[in-house]
């Protein structure tokens, strides 16, 4: 398939036409951004994996008390399980709303799509708000990162996770505002972008699904 990689073909845009941005490549079956986001998520698995590995290593290496239990604090008793449980529901809800947003966009309904993206963004705000409340509760009990490695890894992992949530929220905010201009010119490409961000968001939810029991319940 020879095509003129000519800037002029693109309505005078300065950007050139990159093939398979919207339509999938026949032999791989994916479009570019989908492969790109899965590769990025693979690297994120390794990032959080390294932190889980650190948690396991530090926990296993901690001395055991005479009664046979680990000298590490128990999450159930030192962390705040109720807010975290609520957060888990909030995040799962946001995963549903983002995938519903994508479904509506595929049906051609921008209005409903944007509503669901807005709900997802709202869930993100709620999550961060509850998290801030949780942190403040910990500080009130004088549980700081420097207090014990358990709190150190708790704050680091949930903090990094929170940064990822924030990143996703910024992207959703962009798509709700400036980004939705693309719907007029290239609706399929816009829909793909929501799918890709949705994949990232689901991954953030997935990390929390493992983080929550590991830190709070064990």
């Amino acid at each position, binding site marked *: 398939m020879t095509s003129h990689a000519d800037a002029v073909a693109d309505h005078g845009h300065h950007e050139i*036409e990159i093939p398979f941005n919207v339509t999938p490549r026949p032999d791989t079956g994916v479009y570019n951004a989908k492969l790109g986001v899965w590769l990025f998520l693979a690297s994120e698995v390794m990032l959080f994996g390294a932190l889980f590995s650190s948690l396991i290593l530090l926990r296993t290496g901690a001395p055991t008390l005479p009664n046979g239990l680990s000298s590490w604090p128990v999450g159930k008793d030192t962390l705040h399980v109720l807010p975290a449980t609520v957060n888990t529901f909030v995040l799962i809800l946001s995963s549903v709303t983002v995938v519903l947003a994508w479904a509506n966009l595929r049906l051609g309904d921008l209005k409903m799509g944007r509503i669901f993206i807005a709900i997802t963004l709202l869930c993100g705000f709620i999550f961060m708000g509850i998290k801030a409340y949780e942190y403040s509760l910990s500080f009130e009990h004088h549980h700081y990162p420097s207090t014990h490695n358990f709190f150190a890894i708790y704050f680091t992992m949930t903090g990094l996770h929170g940064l990822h949530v924030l990143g996703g929220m910024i992207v959703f905010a962009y798509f709700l505002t400036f980004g939705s201009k693309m719907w007029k010119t290239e609706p399929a490409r816009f829909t793909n972008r929501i799918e890709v961000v949705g994949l990232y968001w689901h991954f953030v939810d997935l990390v929390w699904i493992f983080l929550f029991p590991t830190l709070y319940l064990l």
Partner: protein
Amino acid sequence: MALKRQVRVGNQWMYARDAWRTLEEARRVALEEERHERQHDLPFWRKYIFSTDHKVIGIQYGFTALCFLLLGFCLMILMRLQLGWPGHAFSVMKLIGEGRAPGGVLLPEAYNQLGAMHGTIMIFLGIVPLAVGAFGNYLVPLQIGAPDMAFPKLNMASYWCYFMGGVVMFSSFFYSGGTANSGWTSYPPLSDIATHGQTFWLCGMVFLITSSLLGSVNFIVTIIQLRAKGMTFMRFPFFVHAQLVTSFLLLLAFPPLEAAAVLQLMDRLAHTSFFLPTGLVVSGQVLGNAGGGNPLLWQHLFWFLAHPEVYVLILPAMGIVAEIIANNTRKPLWGYRSMVGAVVFLGFMSFVVWAHHMFLTGMGTVISAFFQTTTMIISIPSVIVLSALFISLWGGSIRFNTPMLFALAFLPMFGIGGLTGLPLGLATADLHLHDTYYVIGHFHYVVAPGTIFAMFAGVYYWFPKITGRRLNEFWGKVHFWISLVCINGIFFPMFMQGLAGVSRRLYDGGEQYAHAKLIAHQTNPFMSICAIGLLAAQVPFLINFFYNAIASLVGRRQEIANQNPWHATTLEWAATTSPPLGHGNFVEIPVVYRGPYEYSVPGAANDWIPQHHETEPAPPPGGGMLPEVAVAQREM
């Protein structure tokens, strides 16, 4: 034969084949001019500074990386001055500040800083950006027939992220507490309690790692998705395979180091104890932190990256050498399929050998044996690749131009580097050799006369493509021979020093050791003189490079008939002009019909057939592309 027929183009008679080439060129130039006229011209800052064109980004990476390589090299010169003549006053030392070198005598703390930053700058700011960011960015889309990378804006973001990381790292030199001084490996507990410069190092690393991650996603998607029609995986130039595996290594191995850097930042800034054991005593006082940390956790996470990292350093170099060898022997690579299989296997194995850097940390026998075994296994694919490259020379019509000289030198130099790695991979031998100069000799052989020579080869080889001018051959050969001799003079004696027991990271190079004093005395000054010689050898290269680069910029390109001066088959040479067209790369995206190394095909008239030619190009039946050109024919 029709090929002997002469045609007249304008007022010149030429063979039909040459007429065809001239007319094709004319057509390309006409189309390019047309396109430039129709294109809205971008402002300077969007065309050259914040560009999304992979070629501009490649040049940006290349230029920045070469500057950092020179900086790292200068740091090394200062170190070698100290090692050759410990305690001597050198006025050039004062360049790094009176506080670090009072009266021109380097302080031990400053030596540590030089050592740590030399390693960091060379690896993360020099070689990886040059090999992957510069060569990879520029050549991969061209070699696979793509109009650009899959995510051009992400590409631009990767470069600027790297640039920011470089700024952060570089600015740490000017901080009053000094720069990082815990080695390029940044081992805790020392790095946890070191001066502020270490925090700069960690922040710089976060930028650099992010840049690499974004870049690697771009490379993998581009190579898999944007290859031209007919470009199957087994028709890739070997360079593309090398870059694909390298990108997977960067993608999956870097994040643990990013996590570790975050943990170390937490240790330093939030006073956590991830890597600080309980009851740590610093300068006679107990540190008073919560404790419970494990310094080995850092080592595991660090080396999980840093081992694949060394393969990131060598694979693009192997790719470059393979391209140049195939081209300058005028025959296909021997064992192409084996080489591809070998690098894929190498990439996979590189993730499971990391703890051979930790043999002396008290690991149990089972786990040590595991890592020793995997390390021995991983030497096999390297041998396969090197052997295939050696055998590729057999029966070739070898052209000894400057890129080929560097590529040929790569082979035995990498061989020495690889072979000296074997005792280090055996736990028992490593007991004696770990943290000695033997290790420094080993890895420098692989990276300096190995990778860096391959980088030079690549610069000489692809300079005509990027600028439309060839670098001067005579001065190229001068650069090569003096560099080769000096670089061996620096690094070979290191093996002897290491075997004699001289530790690395010693401020005086072994002077204070009774058992090693003699060998240190005998070898260090010689090595330092060779280092200065190596610096001198780069001068003709710098002049050659800048003269020709500037000449190209002011428009003094050499004849466009020279757009493929090496007569190469791969797409970046055969299907584009030199330099390639603006954004979009190709007049028409090529279709690929052949493998990458169709040199000396029996029965062909030329000794090379480009990948995008279905049959050997023949002149068009009477006429040519520009009908208004008067074409007369006469039999010879």
